[in-house]
C-alpha cells in the first residue's frame, strides 16, 4: 500500500478558499491532497470586482482568479455546484448535499458570509435582490437591460457601488440610507457631502435619513415605501445593508460559534483539526468584511498547516477602504472621527472637489479620509501601520508624499523607488513593493505578467501607476517598449492597432493569412476576433478580399435583426425618411401576406416589420425589392439612417434643403460597412428637429451654410457632438461627410463607435486630416473605391430559390412522418 497523503478539504471556493489553496501550494506542493467544495457552479472569482462587472467596465472572465484549469493543473480536486450538508467531526468527513462523503485530515472553513435581508413586507417579491454573487449581478444586469428605476437600500460601500453600476447601465438609480451621511463608517460629514454630489453627477440620487417601511408590488416590486410616507418607484430593489458570517454547517456540527466561527491566532476552531478563514471567522471578537484580512489569515494558516513557520500568528488587520466608482477617488483608513488627544489637519478645495483630512495622535498618524485625490492613500496607510513619528514632516504631510519628499530634498520621481520593501503596493491582494520588484526581476517584464504572477494591480487597478513606476525603475528604458495595448481577444496578444497595421503593411488578404502571420493561438479564431478581422480585411482590400459571412454575426449574415424568439425584424430603407404611397402599399401587402405581427415606426424615420420567420425572409425581400425598396441595414455595423427635418422646402424656419441633403448623404454612403453602426442626421435650422447633434455625423443648416458635427451618441452614455467644421455649400458638406466616414472606417477599432473613437484619438486628429484638401480628397477616393464594391443590395442577392437563399430553409424537416430528404445530385 502506498502512503496516503494528508488530506485537506476546503469548504468554500470564494476568495479565501482560492487563496488558501494557492498559499499552501506556494509553500509545499507535494505534501497534501487538496479538495475544494464550492456552492457556486463556477471556479473562483474576485468578488470585490463584481462592482465593475455590474457597471460593465469589466467582464466576468477578467475577474476569475483561479479557473477550473488552474485547479486541475495543480492537482486540486474540485466539487463546484455542491454544498455541504454536515461535518461529522468524529468520523472526520463532510457530507455533501447529494449524500457523498469526503474524508479529511484537516478541514478549512471558508464559507464567507451572507447578505442581510431586511424583513420588510414584500421582500419576497420578484425584483428584490442582494448584491453578493454572480447570480445577483446577472439578475441586476438583466433588470437594467429593461431600464426603469432601481432603488438600493444601504448607502455603504457595496450599496453605492451597486447604485453606480445600475445608473451606468441606464437605470434611474436611488440610494436609501438610514443616517444623514453616506458611508458614515468610513467618511466624515464633509467628505460624505462631496461624495453625494459626485454620485449625483453620475446619476445616483441619495435619499438620506430615510427608513424603509415596506416594499410595494403585486408579484414584482413596484416601489419602496418609507416611514415618512414617501413612495419611491422601483422596478429593481437591491438590499445592500450588510453581511453576516455564514456559520453553517459549522454551528450544527458543534463548533464554537458566536457571531462568526471562533478561531485562535492560528485560525484554529474549537476542533483542532478544523480551521476557519475569511468572513466566516471571528478572531479576537471581530468579524471582517473586507479583503485585506483574508490575505493575512491565509498566510498565517498556510504557515501553520505546512509547518514552514510554526510561530506564525494572526494579530488582526488594520483596514483601508477604496470606493470602486469610476472617476470618484475616495480613500479612508483608520480613525477619522477623532477623539481625545486627536488633532486634525484638513485641506479643502471645493472648486476642484478635493478634501483631505488626516488625524494625528501623539505625533502618529491614526486615520485619514481622502476625497478627489487619493493617490497618497497607500503612503498614509503605511505611515499609520508602522506608527512612524510624523513630527518632522508634519508641516507638509497633508500635501502628500511627493511634496514631502521634495521638500526633504528627495527627487519626487524617486519616491516610489525609495520605498522600503515591505510597503504595501496592492491593497486588494496584499502585495508589497518587495514582492513586485522580485516578480519583475524574475522575468515578468510587463504589467500583465506582473498581474498574473504576483497579483499586484490585478484587482481594482488603482495601484497600476505604482506598479508601472516599479517596472520602469527596475527595467529602465526597456520597459516602455514592452507594454502592449489590450489584445483583440484571447486568441492573440496583439491589439487592434497592430493587427490593422500588419494587414496593410504585410499585405495580408485572407483570414487564415492574418491568423498565420500574427500567430493566432486558435485554429480559426473566435466570435470576438473573426468579425473584427473580417471587417479590417474588407476595409483594407475592398476589391481583393471576399467578405466572409461565416465571420459575421447572425444579423449581418441574415440581413435582418434576430429577436429573442428567433424571428427577425425587417427594415427597408426610406431615403432621408421619405416614403410614398407605392412603398407603403407594398409594405402593407407584405404585412398581410406573411402575417407580420407588428409594424413599428423607428427612431430613424422608417418602418420596422417584426416577427418575420427566417424561411420567409427571401420572399419578403423580393416583394419589397419589387416595389423599389432595398435593405435598410438596420441590422449592420454600417450606415443606418439619415434622419432629416423638412427644411426650407416646407418649414418657415428652414434655412437650407435639409431633406434633400439627407437623401444625397444616404445615397452616397448606404451599404458601407463600418467598425460599428453609424447614424446621420440633417437639421434645417439650429432648432435641430432632426437631432443632428447626437449623431455620428450631423449637419445643422444655418443661413450662411452648413455646420458639420461629429461623434454624437444617444446610447447609454449620452454624448453631444463636437463641431468639426463649417462649410458654405452642399457639395462640401457631402464631401466632408464621405471623408469623415472613410477616416472612421480606416482608423477606429471594430465595435468602437465614433464617440469613444474621437475621445481616444482626439478631435484635432480628425480635424487635421479632413481640413487638408488633399488628404480629404484621398479619403473620399478610397471611400468611393469601396462603395463601388459594397454598395449592393444584399436583399437582391438573396432572391428566392437562388443559391444564397437556400440556407434560409431547414436542411430537412422531419416533423411530419419522418420525411426523408431527396438525395443530392
Amino acid at each position, binding site marked *: 500500500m502506498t502512503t496516503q497523503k494528508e488530506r485537506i478539504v476546503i469548504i468554500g471556493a470564494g476568495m479565501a478558499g482560492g487563496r488558501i489553496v494557492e498559499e499552501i501550494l506556494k509553500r509545499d506542493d507535494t505534501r497534501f491532497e487538496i479538495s475544494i467544495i464550492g456552492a457556486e*457552479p*463556477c*471556479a473562483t472569482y474576485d468578488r470585490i470586482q463584481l462592482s465593475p462587472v455590474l457597471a460593465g467596465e469589466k*467582464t*466576468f*472572465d477578467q475577474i*476569475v482568479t483561479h479557473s*477550473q484549469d488552474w485547479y486541475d493543473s495543480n492537482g486540486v480536486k474540485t466539487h*463546484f*455546484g455542491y454544498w455541504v450538508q454536515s461535518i461529522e467531526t468524529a468520523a472526520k468527513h463532510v457530507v455533501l448535499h447529494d449524500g457523498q462523503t469526503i474524508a479529511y485530515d484537516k478541514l478549512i472553513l471558508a464559507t464567507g458570509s451572507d447578505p442581510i435581508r431586511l424583513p420588510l413586507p414584500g421582500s419576497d417579491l420578484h425584483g428584490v435582490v442582494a448584491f453578493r454573487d454572480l447570480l445577483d449581478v446577472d439578475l441586476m444586469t438583466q433588470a437594467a437591460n429593461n431600464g426603469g428605476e432601481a432603488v438600493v437600500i444601504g448607502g455603504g460601500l457595496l450599496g453605492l457601488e451597486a447604485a453606480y453600476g445600475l445608473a451606468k447601465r441606464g437605470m434611474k438609480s436611488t440610494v436609501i440610507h438610514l443616517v444623514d451621511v453616506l458611508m458614515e463608517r468610513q467618511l466624515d460629514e464633509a467628505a460624505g457631502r462631496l461624495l453625494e454630489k459626485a454620485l449625483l453627477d453620475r446619476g445616483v440620487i441619495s435619499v438620506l435619513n430615510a427608513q424603509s417601511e415596506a416594499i410595494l408590488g403585486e408579484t414584482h416590486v413596484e416601489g419602496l415605501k418609507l416611514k415618512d410616507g414617501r413612495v419611491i418607484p422601483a422596478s429593481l430593489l437591491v438590499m445592500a445593508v450588510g453581511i453576516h458570517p455564514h456559520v453553517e454547517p459549522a454551528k450544527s456540527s458543534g463548533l464554537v460559534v458566536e457571531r462568526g466561527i471562533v478561531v485562535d491566532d492560528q485560525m484554529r476552531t474549537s476542533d483542532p483539526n478544523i480551521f476557519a478563514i475569511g468572513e466566516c471567522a471571528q478572531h479576537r471578537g471581530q468579524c471582517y468584511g473586507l479583503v485585506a484580512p483574508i490575505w493575512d489569515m491565509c498566510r498565517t494558516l498556510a504557515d501553520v498547516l505546512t509547518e514552514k513557520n510554526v510561530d506564525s500568528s494572526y494579530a488582526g488587520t488594520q483596514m483601508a477602504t477604496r470606493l470602486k466608482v469610476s472617476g470618484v477617488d475616495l480613500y479612508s483608513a483608520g480613525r477619522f472621527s477623532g477623539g481625545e488627544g486627536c488633532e486634525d489637519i484638513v485641506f479643502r478645495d471645493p472648486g476642484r472637489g478635493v478634501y483631505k483630512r488626516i488625524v494625528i495622535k501623539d505625533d502618529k498618524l491614526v486615520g485619514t479620509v481622502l476625497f478627489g485625490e487619493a493617490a497618497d492613500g497607500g503612503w498614509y496607510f503605511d505611515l499609520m501601520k508602522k506608527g512612524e513619528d510624523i513630527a518632522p514632516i508634519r508641516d507638509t504631510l497633508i500635501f502628500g508624499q511627493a511634496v514631502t519628499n521634495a521638500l526633504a530634498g528627495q527627487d519626487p520621481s524617486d519616491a516610489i523607488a525609495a520605498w522600503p520593501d515591505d510597503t504595501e503596493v496592492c491593497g486588494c491582494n496584499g502585495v508589497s513593493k518587495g514582492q513586485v520588484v522580485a516578480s519583475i526581476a524574475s522575468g515578468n517584464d510587463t504589467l500583465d505578467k506582473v498581474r498574473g504572477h504576483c497579483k499586484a494591480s490585478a484587482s481594482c487597478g488603482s495601484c497600476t501607476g505604482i506598479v508601472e513606476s516599479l517596472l520602469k525603475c527596475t527595467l529602465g528604458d526597456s520597459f516602455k517598449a514592452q507594454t502592449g495595448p489590450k489584445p483583440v481577444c484571447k486568441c492573440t496578444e496583439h491589439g487592434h492597432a497592430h493587427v490593422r497595421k500588419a494587414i496593410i503593411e504585410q499585405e495580408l488578404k485572407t483570414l487564415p493569412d492574418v491568423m498565420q502571420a500574427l500567430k493566432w493561438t*486558435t*485554429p*480559426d*479564431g*473566435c*466570435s470576438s476576433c*473573426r*468579425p473584427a478581422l473580417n471587417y479590417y480585411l474588407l476595409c483594407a482590400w475592398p476589391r481583393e478580399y471576399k467578405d466572409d459571412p*461565416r*465571420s*459575421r*454575426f*447572425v444579423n449581418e*449574415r*441574415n440581413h435582418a435583426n*434576430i429577436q*429573442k424568439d*428567433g424571428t427577425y425584424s425587417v427594415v427597408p430603407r426610406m431615403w432621408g425618411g421619405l416614403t410614398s404611397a407605392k412603398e407603403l402599399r407594398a409594405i402593407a401587402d407584405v404585412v398581410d401576406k406573411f402575417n407580420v405581427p407588428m409594424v413599428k415606426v423607428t427612431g430613424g424615420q422608417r418602418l420596422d416589420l417584426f416577427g418575420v420567420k427566417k424561411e420567409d425572409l427571401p420572399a419578403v425581400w423580393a416583394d419589397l425589392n419589387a416595389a423599389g425598396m432595398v435593405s435598410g441595414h438596420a441590422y449592420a455595423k454600417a450606415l443606418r439612417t439619415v434622419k432629416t427635418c423638412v427644411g426650407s422646402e416646407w418649414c418657415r424656419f428652414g434655412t437650407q434643403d435639409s431633406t434633400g441633403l439627407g437623401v444625397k448623404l444616404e445615397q452616397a454612403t448606404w451599404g458601407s460597412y463600418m467598425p460599428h453602426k453609424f447614424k446621420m442626421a440633417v437639421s434645417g435650422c439650429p432648432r435641430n428637429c432632426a437631432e443632428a447633434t447626437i449623431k455620428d455625423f450631423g449637419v445643422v443648416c444655418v443661413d450662411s451654410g452648413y455646420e458639420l458635427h461629429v461623434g454624437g451618441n444617444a446610447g447609454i452614455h449620452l454624448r453631444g457632438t463636437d463641431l468639426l467644421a463649417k462649410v458654405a455649400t452642399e457639395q462640401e458638406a457631402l464631401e466632408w461627410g464621405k471623408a469623415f466616414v472613410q477616416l472612421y472606417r480606416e482608423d477606429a477599432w471594430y465595435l468602437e463607435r465614433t464617440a469613444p473613437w474621437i475621445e481616444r484619438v482626439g478631435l484635432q486628429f480628425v480635424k487635421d486630416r479632413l481640413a487638408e484638401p488633399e488628404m480629404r480628397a484621398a479619403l473620399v477616393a478610397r471611400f468611393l473605391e469601396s462603395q463601388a464594391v459594397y454598395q449592393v443590395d444584399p436583399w437582391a442577392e438573396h432572391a428566392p430559390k437562388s443559391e444564397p437563399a437556400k*440556407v434560409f430553409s*431547414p*436542411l*430537412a*424537416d*422531419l*416533423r411530419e412522418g*419522418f420525411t*426523408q*430528404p431527396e*438525395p*443530392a445530385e
Partner: protein
Amino acid sequence: MNANVMINWTDVGAAIEVAPQSARRVETVMGAIAVFRTVADEYYAVFDKCPHKGGPLSEGIVHGRAIACPLHNWSISLESGEALGADAGKGCTPTVPLKIADGRILLGLNF
C-alpha cells in the same frame, strides 16, 4: 443517449450541404436540431437551443469545436453541449449522435 438502445439513423441530407464553419437546421417533432461543420470538417449535432435563453445556436459563429450563441454570446461545446468559459457549469444543450456515411449526414434519433 443510452448505447444499449438501438439507434435509429435518419438521413437528413448531403454532407456538402453544410459549409465549413457553419450550421444547418433540421426540424423534428422534438424541436430543431442544429448540424454543424467545423473548420476541420468535423460534423456535430446538438439541439438548436442555447441553455441560456433558448437562442438558435445554428445562427451563431462556429469557432474551433464550439458555437457562440447569437443572442448573448454564450460559448457552447459542440462535443458535449456544455457551456464553456465564463458560463461553464451553467447549462448544457443535449447532443445528438451523428455519423457521416457515403457523403450523407445521419442523425441518431430514437423518436
